[in-house]
């Protein structure tokens, strides 16, 4: 479930040696920031920074770690990501109130997923922060094409693709996040790619 390094760090942590834990969490930071970037409501982009969300998440990790170590019912990264997703949900609720739901999906796919990434608007904002204008123009066409095709997919398909490619989760992790069997997650993923290709080619 966890990689050898993760297992080692967690075993040490259960013996009370938590020194390496920070390094492990830092190693997750890139992927987690990407997740937050993708899922933070565009309206909050100016007000909330991904780093803040992760800061709070890591505090939460420290508090809940003993219980996780006992249960270990999720891969560690998936569990940390889950806490980050929860933080994000709380933030959305706190800042956007109940109206947050009206713009999002009617039904969250999985409590572990976090706010949906149904529109890649978040990705756009993220993009704008990190790129030179010329790159934005050059990438725009490609992104728009993928994005409109993604928007045509079912929610679950889209999320599987976003998790695999944008958040760079492994299939096992996707399965854990979406509460599917690894086999079902794989099947979903392959089919979703094919549907996306179909949507791209048909949408022309």
């Amino acid at each position, binding site marked *: 479930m966890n990689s050898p390094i993760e297992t080692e760090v967690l075993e040490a942590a259960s013996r009370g040696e938590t020194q390496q834990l920070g390094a492990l969490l830092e190693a997750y930071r*890139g992927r987690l920031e*990407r997740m937050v970037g993708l899922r933070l409501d565009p309206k909050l982009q100016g007000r909330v920074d991904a780093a803040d969300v992760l800061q709070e998440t890591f505090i939460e990790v420290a508090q809940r770690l003993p219980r996780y170590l006992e249960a270990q019912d999720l891969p560690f990264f998936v569990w940390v990501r889950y806490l980050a997703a929860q933080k994000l949900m709380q933030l959305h609720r706190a800042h956007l109130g*109940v109206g947050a*739901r*009206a713009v999002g999906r009617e*039904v*969250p*796919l999985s*409590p572990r997923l976090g706010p949906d990434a149904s529109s*890649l608007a978040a*990705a*756009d904002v*993220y*993009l704008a922060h*990190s*790129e*030179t*204008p*010329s*790159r*934005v*123009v*050059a*990438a725009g*066409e*490609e*992104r*728009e*094409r*993928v*994005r409109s*095709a993604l928007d045509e997919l*079912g*929610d*679950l398909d889209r999320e599987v*693709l976003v998790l*695999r*490619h*944008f958040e*760079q989760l*492994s*299939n096992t992790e996707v399965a854990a996040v979406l509460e599917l069997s*690894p*086999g*079902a997650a*794989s*099947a979903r*993923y*392959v*089919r979703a*790619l*094919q*549907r*996306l*290709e*179909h949507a*791209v*080619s048909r*949408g*022309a």
Partner: protein
Amino acid sequence: MVERTESGSGHAERDAEEARLQRVDAVLTELTERARRGSPLDIEPLLAQHPDLAADVRRALPALVGLERAASTAGDEPQAARDAMPSQIGDFKIVRELGQGGMGTVYEAIEERLGRRVALKLLPPRATRDARYLERFHREARAAARMHHPGIVTVHGFGEVDGAHYYSMQFVEGTSLDRLVAYLAWRDGTGPAPALEAAERTLLDSLTGVLCSGSLSGFDSDDSTKDDSNRPTFGARYHRNVARLVLQAAEAVEYAHARGVLHRDIKPANLLADADGHLYITDFGLAKTDESGDLTRAGDILGTLRYMAPEQFEGHTDARSDVYALGLVLYELLTLRPAFAASHRPRLVHDVLYERPIRPRSLRAEVPQDLERVVRKATSKLAEERYPTARALAEDLRCWLDGRPIAARMPSAWYLARLAVARNRAVIVTAGLAFALIALGVARYVTALSGAEAAQRAAAVRAALAAAESALAVDEVASARDRLAGVPEAHRGWAWRHLDACVDQSAGTLASIGEPVQSLAFVNGDTVVFGRTAMHRVRGGRVVAEAPGPPGAVIVRAARTALGVWVVSDWAGRVWLSEGDLPSFEREPLQLPSTGFGLALTPDGARALVGLFDATIVVIDVAQGVVERTLEGPREHVDGIAVPATGAAAFVGSNDGRLLRYDLRDGSYRELARDLGALHAVATNADASIVAVAGESGLIHLLDGASGASRGLLVGSGATVSCLAISPDGKTLASGGMSQAIRVYDIEDRRPLRVLTGHARRLTSLCFGADSSQLFSGSYAGIAKEWDLDCVGGAVVLGGHIADVVGLAVAPDGRRFATGGRDATIRIWDSASEGLERILLGQPGEVSGLAWGSDGARLVSTCRRGYVLGWEVDSAKSTWRFKADSGVPGRVAIAPGSDECWVPFTDGTLRVFGLSDGALRAELAGLFEGRATTDPLGAVAVGGHVFVGTPSGEVIELDRATRSVVQRAQVHTEFVYAIDVAPNGREIATSSADRTVAIMATGKLAQAERLHIESTEHGGASDGLEGLAYSPDGALLAVASRGGQVRLIELATRTEVLRLSGHRSWVRSVAFLGDGSRLVSTGSEGDVRVWDTITTAQKRALMTPLRSERRRAVALAQRLGVALDQWDTAPAALAALPLDAASRSLALSEVHARMGRRASLVDVAWEGLLQNDAPESWRSALQLNEAISRTNRHSSATRLLGTAASVRLGDLQAAVLALTLWSRVTGYGQAPASAGATGWSDTPLVGRALAARIGTTNFGPDAAAAEALRRELTGEAAVPNKDAARALAILDWPVE
């Protein structure tokens, strides 16, 4: 070992397709990693290793590449690139990034030694690992360094510093033409504002001035008036100036061509213009020098799609390809838009290959006609129609500028004809493949294409069918439909027709409203379909009335009482009340604090309940139009509300996972259940005895409306459920949601009745009509459909058997068929009405073989305990029986018209019985080597011959008259399960445990042709082929596989055309009915499935006359028989029902079939399990438990058995769930531990042992309790009995 094979079911096999897709995923993951590493995606070697995955990988790959690109532009990649921007490379001081070229990043830099400004092109570091890439980079630099032309950017030199490869070139203070065009389009008001830095803006401004008003290169020196308006004019002067720009480019290209260098990537982005209008070609990134060999290889597609000449897609490039690109540049400069504007790759490829661009003059009438001709000649699809050289293009442009006649003429008829032919090629394939190739930069793509011809079409058809089938299996209707549509008419055989019938099982589409269906209501025989902005009244599939919703409102839900009171809610939290057939919005809406997602009305229409997003429920007095009360209780928003007919209570399901029951008189509430996961839908029957709730978890919980006690759990597809509906008669429940399929259940026996496919998007709403078999549904796609639950095309499941069904025989009339199983019953079905006709009871054990006499009145069955029985079907009575001392009888062979039956026994004996009297007419002992097994041996009789299989894989042919062996052959290497004879009688086919099917001419057994049936699981050790049947037209062979699928083999090609999946475990037998439009298969879980090629519409036409009152009565009785809790009282209860004699007798048979079964089965299971402690046995125990508990909720013994199996298999979660459910059902309390102590009245010791081993969810295994129980069981006072033994066994199981 024998027991294990025979015990049937095995555990639910992993879906083979899923396993394969996992392997596809593995390949795709590898490719993703390569993409992220920046390694080349050399897919072909990878696919060569996995030929069975190639099609899926190819289909998924373009999207994968697209996503990785989007991800890398959206994510941290650019960040890294920016961080990686060097400040100094050798002697070069980097100033800024100018852009990304085809093969690297270009920087503005200062060459410090010379103090000159240069453009420095730098290869991306990760690409330097690729030797080929590096080689090309150097070649580019060498090629470019040999050019010295005013129109070509001069290359100063190249080199490598610290692993960074670069070359330096002339810095052009200018802009690329793509930027220019974008800017001009903006200034023209036809394009968006480009992002510009001040310097670039100044440059573009001045260039625009020169192009529109000035003149280039001293051609025109007249000084016409300057246009003062802000908007540049694209008049004659502009046209002349852009012609000069392209002329310069053509001259430069001609210079390069003369030196043996093709550019191959001419596009506006590679053409730079300075402020004076001088043009420079840059980026010979794809140059192909004649002297350095063809490193890029034929077929290697590089360059930019939009400006690629059609022949470049086929790997051919010559000077005319560059001419073509120059023509497109001219087109773009004249029209300020690309000739091929599509932004979707496959579309773009298609357009480039087959479509003529819009004529420049129809976009801009002011474009000179002759210039348009130049463009059209230069951009001909066919290279031979173009200017043969860049010089010729340059010459024609010069002619035009000089006012001389040009060479370009309109396209020839020959050209147009060829173009038309070219369009008819396999456009989609080409486009899709080209998309992938270009995205990948991978070679050999187009070459692969040209090889794929008719021979591969059949494979493509099979792939399409397989894809459609697996799509349907996961409810992906739209995808299945698309796949099927792609199959040419000529290839639409049984398999296609079957899948086609499954794609839309609805009785018809009611309406297509163009926006998501939000709600449905059934009103006086019509259906009202609510979209977001309008509502549509539909009758007989036609919209008879249509009305807009409230102005400016987006409708969320609507509900109506039978009396005609409507309540409609919108996103803004408003609610409208009205009366009538359609809602009206005249009354002022009530403004509620938040959006109302759950709506319900009391049956008298006096009150409306609205469940709000803010976690409250508002009770509205309809008459007064005021909020009467606000109910608190839920902790999260409220999606589901149901009010039963009594009107006194309301059931509220909230996203907090709780079901609350409100007393509407005082607003008080009770929590009926919790921890159900976010709830989205609630439904209840008329007397509120059952409440169904479902939501995110995908499970449907049936709860007691008064106590909240669990009354059952329905497991659907696992996808979130968002709508539920209960039929007016309270017997049927329909569910829908994220899955595209509707699932319909029998509420009383908790059995799935139907899985209905037809919608191609997720379901939003469901409602029943007046008749409980009429269902309506609406989807996100804006489609509303009608369903007939009694009549479903494509595929149906016939329920009844509760365990393994091995025996299957079709009556001579081709209409009725008999099934017999481990539950010791034989059921006779009528395929036309898809109903049960009769149950034959009195079988002394598990049925393994069945055959009909030619008259259709008699049936012969065999039983694993050694019996052979003769039956009279009409009287449902057994007329004779035979018991063998040794050996297990197999399948039964009866030749058409014959009065005797042949039965092979596993001890090596073949016996012949008289059909009517059971007289033993012959006994051929020692015919083959016997084997101790309970599997049925195959046997078939045709004409004067009988064929039987043996345990060792032999097939023996006997003469019926002489009862002597005619010939025998070792056809298989293992047990022969089934033999069938081809319709023409000249050929037989056999199936075996060795996983092969053999086909042989009847006289030539030794020349059998063996077909290996590819296993559906990894290893596939258990994937034997138990059943086999020819289709009546002889075209197909259906094979029953232990892999859980029916495999259809096309005999003409000996290839598999379709796998029918649906059985959750082994498929035991298979047979075609009548004309072959129906196929029956039986499985080890008691499931009988009918697969057909008949659409719902066709079936309705056929079945309507059959749907008599009697059929309904039978169905009712059947349900009743299953549902009655107390079997003892069933006969009396049935007697009281107004049923005709036939119906009553059928219902009674059903009751008898189930009575007395449970205890013995459970006991047998326990004893067997404790003796043979193998996972397979426990898995079958689990299935047995499932089968029995579906029909008998009070059997705590079976619950325990199931729990024990879960524990034994290490699935503690399942065990806890089973225990919890059981204790809820029996009302003994929630905690398994207390259940162990207080309940388990049947087997308290076993219960306690299990409770100690599992513990509760909170506390874990209870070692102390286990120890105490062990002492009790082994102490002096202990009474040894079977329960004590079981309990001890449980305590002794090793901890996993």
